[in-house]
């Protein structure tokens, strides 16, 4: 069974403007990035996946359940989403309590919730900050806390909305670790991001949204090859891909090592 099925999805807000214009997609467990400029419908789309919005037309099935038939809170057992602004959700005075909030809500027992939360915080390298007040930490650390609080819920689907904003090099490494961890656990990860280099490094599948429609859907290699289409969506290729294109190679390179090896092999 496909984990997520989107059938002929259309969505408009009450004021009438149609944001999503007929989306058909299925997701299994490949790490997927959704890219597109602001206003293309990415955030609206994931809100629909979370059940926060209901389709105007069409259906979304999360593990066979239609999103219109379940409350958002119940869907939270299957789909976890990390919002862009950590300040929008943090309200507990201890990091550990904050991370345990989600797991407890969806039915994990005290012991289980604590265990999952501590594991998630360890992954974020925040084990030493467990009893601190989240607001005493930096913005980037608070971002990691919100990611931990979703990981601790151990949902089969995880959505990250702009995880690399305000992260430095070390922060991005932590996020790449999460991606690996989720892949190891067989989870479906959907990432919304503007960081093309990051997409190239972590995504097996890339979906490009433009003006409410899917204009590209394929592996990262396939999608980043089409720089003409990317340009129409105001997107760029990852830096390494741009260099290789400029040098006249006709295949796409997504990673530095890949390109270096190819060159050193005499090409």
């Amino acid at each position, binding site marked *: 069974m496909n984990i997520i099925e989107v059938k002929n999805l259309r969505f408009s807000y009450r004021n009438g403007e149609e944001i999503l214009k007929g989306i058909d997609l299925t997701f299994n467990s490949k790490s997927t990035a959704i890219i597109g400029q602001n206003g293309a419908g990415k955030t609206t789309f994931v809100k629909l996946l979370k059940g926060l919005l209901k389709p105007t037309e069409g259906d979304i099935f999360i593990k066979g359940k239609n999103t219109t038939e379940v*409350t958002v809170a119940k869907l939270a057992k299957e789909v976890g989403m990390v919002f862009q602004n950590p300040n929008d*959700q943090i*309200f507990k005075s201890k990091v550990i309590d904050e991370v345990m909030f989600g797991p407890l809500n969806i039915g994990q027992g005290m012991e289980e919730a604590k265990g999952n939360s501590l594991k998630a915080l360890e992954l974020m390298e925040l084990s030493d900050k467990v009893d601190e007040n989240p607001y005493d930490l930096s913005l980037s650390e608070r971002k990691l806390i919100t990611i931990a609080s979703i990981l601790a819920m151990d949902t089969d689907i995880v959505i990250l909305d702009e995880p690399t904003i305000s992260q430095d090099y070390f922060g991005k490494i932590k996020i790449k670790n999460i991606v690996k961890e989720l892949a190891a656990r067989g989870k479906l990860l959907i990432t919304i991001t503007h960081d093309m280099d990051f997409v190239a490094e972590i995504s097996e599948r890339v979906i490009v949204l433009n003006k409410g429609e899917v204009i590209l859907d394929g592996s990262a290699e396939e999608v980043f090859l089409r720089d003409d289409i990317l340009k129409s969506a105001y997107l760029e290729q990852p830096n390494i891909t741009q260099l290789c294109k400029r040098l006249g190679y006709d295949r796409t390179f997504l990673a530095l090592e890949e390109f270096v090896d190819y060159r050193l092999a005499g090409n």
Partner: protein
Amino acid sequence: MAKTLSLYVERNTFIHRVDSINKILYVLVSVAIPLILPYKFVAVLLILISISFLLLAKVMRRVIPLIEFSVIILLSIVIIQGLFHAGNKTVAFHIARITFYKEGLSYAFTLSMRVINILLAFAILVLTTKPSELIEALVKKGLSPRFGYVLSSALQIIPQMMSAVGSIMDAQRSRGLETEGNLAVRIRAFFPLIGPVVMGSLIETRERAMALEVRAFNSREKKTFLNERQNLRSDNVIRLILFSILSLSIVLRVLL
């Protein structure tokens, strides 16, 4: 919610062009005169004047719902006073076996006229004046610019805060917080919202305070204003008229 809190109706009439300060003075004078000259016809006269201004300003239609609403309330006051007012002696009329008295009706009538008078005068102010212009006029006359800023920014920030609550709700629902259901569930759902709303506001306020600082908000220079409204002769004339009417009523009160 609308993007800015304002009842202003965009029109291009003489009333709209009148200086905001004069409109405030008009409200003050309209409220004061029926108190100085407590004759029934004075209040009615002022009501008619306000109505004609509202018609001139082409905003009368907006006022009608307000009047309808107040009439309902005032009617109940009239009935209650007509029946139970303390000094009721003289019978006015009967309905079935219920007696209405002149004193009560008279009292209620005067009260109602005063209330409607105030409402209409305020309506002129609120419907024909841009809040930003009003606040700027007050700042020019000496209101603290800080306070003026707090007022003008509140008009846009409050609606923004309301939509922020929506985002915060979404974030907490996404973590399994149940918000749909019976009253108890919905009340409990309220608590995880308070922290983020308050913290969010505090953080934003602080960031905005810094942005204001670097835009020279606390500069000791005398401020200038982009919208320099010329002191029109008509502004002064109107002010003169208002003060004259006020003085006249005081004189009449003393004489009569």
